[in-house]
């Protein structure tokens, strides 16, 4: 019998008496007897905190794929970046953790200002003037970006580069069944999108930068294509790479979305992560989710508040720009802290180190007998794909035994048959390798050596 309920038995009795009730059961008098749970839920009885914690600890021990015990070359949208103690300490402050959505701004300036700062940073990285207060993850941000694009262009046809992360394309496809958007997947060739020169009139064009295979795409061509079709250009951009490569906004994107996990959020088996969303001022009234704006209080003191609320579901209901209510505010606050810690030079340095490490690793891997680049000629920052002579899944299993999380097997992302991004052979033999600033030369050398052995 464990719980967190304060009431003593005597208090419960007095309260029931005040209500004129003879028993707790009577609180539920309104519930039809026939519907009630009769013998109690078939769940174990409550266990004490230390007992449950011990069980969770033992389950945690059964997870071998820990970035603190295995050397992590896995990426594919989730990266093992440095998160310093200071960011964890600040992000863990209970005022941030246990607050609700800032509905009463007078007592929520902490979260509001932190989110305002996050929005500023997210907008700067996107190269656009407005960013929202977060969406669920990169995938949900992409869906919302496409929704905005269709609404803005008035045309439901969406051209989606095969370089968009396969999971994100999958999520897009799932939700398109509701919205009715017509998704046209544009395949890659040698790792970059081969945009059609004609055929159809897209309302939205979606590219990734770099794409999920790590390759930097020509966004100038995307902008031209969008202009040609009067389409909205949506880019799923990696915000870490933005430390050294041109921002998608600078390339002309109307909407920039992205996965913000890299900014202080742990790998966490895939969530909670952080959906980034930025757009042009022209689209601000179509912005999904929350937006914090600066204003003043009645005494003229600077203050922050959620604004343009009329876009939101609680006011506009079925006409809202999005159905999002609870978002990922805590992760946005953490991202603001992490980006504050990194600072201008730190983010650029992280991106630079990723690039150095990734190229160092790439060059050593493709120098191995039988190992080839999967996207020869393409430029990359933190991540690249190789072709292993044996099935990548086998290689990955062998490397795990040596203590390496080898990278992601492409078939696990695209399905066995490949897709618009890789062929069936590419899927089977493709390994997506990510190198963050946390990987040392010693680790990379050991990894390359182990992979060499594993693929023989």
């Amino acid at each position, binding site marked *: 019998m464990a*719980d*967190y309920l*304060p*009431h003593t038995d005597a208090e419960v009795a007095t309260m029931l008496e005040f209500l004129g009730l003879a028993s707790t059961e009577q609180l*539920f008098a*309104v*519930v039809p007897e026939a*519907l*009630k749970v009769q013998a109690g*839920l078939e*769940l174990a009885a409550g266990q004490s905190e230390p007992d*449950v914690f011990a069980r*969770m600890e033992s389950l945690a021990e*059964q*997870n071998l794929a820990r970035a603190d015990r295995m050397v992590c070359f*896995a990426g*594919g949208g989730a990266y093992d970046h*440095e998160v310093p103690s200071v960011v964890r300490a*600040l992000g863990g402050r209970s005022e*941030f953790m246990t*607050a*609700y959505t800032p509905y*009463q*701004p*007078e007592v929520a300036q902490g*979260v509001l*200002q*932190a989110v305002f700062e996050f929005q500023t940073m997210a907008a700067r990285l996107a190269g656009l003037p407005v*960013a929202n207060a977060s969406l*669920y993850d*990169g995938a*949900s941000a992409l869906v919302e970006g496409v929704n905005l694009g269709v609404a803005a262009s008035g045309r439901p046809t969406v051209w989606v580069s095969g370089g968009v992360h396969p*999971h994100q394309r999958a999520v897009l496809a*799932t939700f398109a069944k509701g919205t009715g958007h017509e998704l046209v997947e544009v395949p890659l060739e040698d790792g970059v999108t081969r945009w059609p020169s004609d055929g159809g009139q897209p309302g939205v064009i979606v590219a990734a930068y770099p794409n999920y295979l790590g390759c*930097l795409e020509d966004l100038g061509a995307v902008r031209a294509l969008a202009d040609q079709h009067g389409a909205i250009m949506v880019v799923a951009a990696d915000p870490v790479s933005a430390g050294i490569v*041109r*921002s998608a906004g600078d390339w002309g994107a109307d909407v920039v979305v992205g996965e913000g996990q890299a900014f202080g959020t742990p790998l966490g*088996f895939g969530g909670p992560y952080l959906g980034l969303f930025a757009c042009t001022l022209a689209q601000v009234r179509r912005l999904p989710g929350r937006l914090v704006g600066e204003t003043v*209080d*009645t005494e003229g003191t600077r203050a922050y508040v959620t*604004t343009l609320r009329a876009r939101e*579901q609680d006011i506009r209901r079925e*006409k809202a720009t999005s159905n999002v*209510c609870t978002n990922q505010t805590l*992760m946005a606050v953490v991202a603001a802290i992490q980006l*504050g*810690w990194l*600072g*201008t030079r730190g983010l*650029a340095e992280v991106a*630079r*180190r990723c*690039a150095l490490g990734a190229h*160092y690793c790439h060059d050593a891997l493709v120098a191995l007998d039988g190992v080839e680049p999967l996207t020869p000629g393409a430029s990359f920052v933190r991540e690249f794909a190789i072709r292993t002579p044996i099935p990548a*899944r086998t290689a*990955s*299993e062998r490397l795990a035994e040596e203590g390496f*999380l080898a990278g992601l097997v492409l078939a696990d992302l695209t399905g066995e048959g490949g897709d618009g991004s890789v062929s069936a052979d590419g899927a089977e033999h493709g390994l997506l390798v990510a190198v963050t600033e946390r990987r040392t030369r*010693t680790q*990379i050398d050991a990894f390359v050596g182990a992979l060499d052995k594993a693929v023989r």
Partner: protein
Amino acid sequence: MSETRSDVIPRAAAGGRATSAPIMGRAAEPTIFELSESGRSSYQLRTTGIPERSLADLIPGDHLRPEAPPLAEVSERDLVAHFTRLSARQFSVDLGAYPLGSCTMKYNPKVCDAVAGLAGLAQVHPGAPAHLVQGWLEILVDLEAALCEITGMAAATLQPAAGAAGELTGLLLMRAWHDANGEQRRRVIIPDSAHGTNPASVTLGGYEVTTVPSDERGCVDMAALRSVLDTDVAGIMLTNPNTLGLFEEDIAEVAEAVHEVGGLLYYDGANLNAILGVVRPGDMGFDIVHMNLHKTFATPHGGGGPGAGPVAVSERLVDFLPGPKPARLDDESGDRFGWITPPRSIGRVHGWHGNALVLARALTYIEVHGADGLRRVAERAVLNANWIRRRLAGSFDVAYDRPCMHEVVFSASALRKDEGIKALDVAKRLLEEGFHSPTVYFPLIVDEALMIEPTETESPQTLEALADALERIVAEARSGDHSATEAPRTTPVRRVDEARAARTLVPTFDARGD
């Protein structure tokens, strides 16, 4: 003095000055951009030993940006001070009662944070092969089983990241079901008391909203419902107890009527905490249920998120659930857990497997409470709400004069009419009394709504103090003291000008006029 004056006069603001910490003063906190000074830094990265090369050798020039994107440049000391002060400018459950109706701001056990912080959970890559993440898979499988038992459903997806995502997932399941039956239905019915996410989700699910009014008892008007039911109706979305905190007594009848025309029943589980172990959506006849784990199972809201919105379904919808799904494998020899994709899956609704660390917290909460504890949660939540309802019946009108479940909706409309004191004024005035405000102006169907959800973790003493404070506010207004319109006067900022924020949009530091 001026002769000794230095010319160090700083461009940046003073990061060590704490006038904005409420313990010291009421000044505004400078933004991190104002604290920034070019050349300063906090970050420290590990030594890698990787040979240096020029970026220009690695990445084509047209991709490289000429300058680093500007963020802020602050020392670690100033970073800490800034965000610590911001935290001091933020109210939270850990400081005091937060009786926001519908939002369920209960105390969140710290053990859940400790679980989410375990390196064996937090440091796990979501793309790792199944045999390396057996612990995680077991957690997810156990949570799914527990949620199904709690809701009376057959299977669940843990992917949706919040309640609204769950709703949309549920609507897509509804659509997939009708599609599979070769039916093209166009409408989803929603009561007028519903939360805004419901209609918004319906639109995104490709349906049209048909609103049914509530009757004088605050429940779905059965006659009105019957009048809109036909074979064009894909389903109905209900919250039960509904957003008025009232139990839809006719739920069996509703279910029968909707099922009769071939529609499905969707349960918005935001209020599930009221009925844990008492009655189950599945037993009421629902086909699809989303849960807000961040409400019912006490995973902290994080200032607006993250949450988690698993969706459970009845037997006939199991094959349509999103995938891949964690599953216990029969295979005796190999891994105990793996991934399966339901045969007619609607596909992925999340980039990975859902908000996993939130899910682990929820399982911890459920296991500590167990069957008995969860039932007590419901009992005490309902007890507290009814106590408040009865206790304040003399101060405010109750929107519906009948016993409530876990929350109660009052109306300040008389106060407004008589004294010009709006629900908003009451809310702001209550801050001065040391309580977070209730939800105001929701549900929309109650004029000057004040919606109080005390939650089960607040003590009778706290309820008494809250009730006293609200009584005091009403008495004060009724005595002709209308200073509530100036409230709050004790908070770091006074009433905030929301209109100006929308009129002169300043969504980033860079958009600032000055």
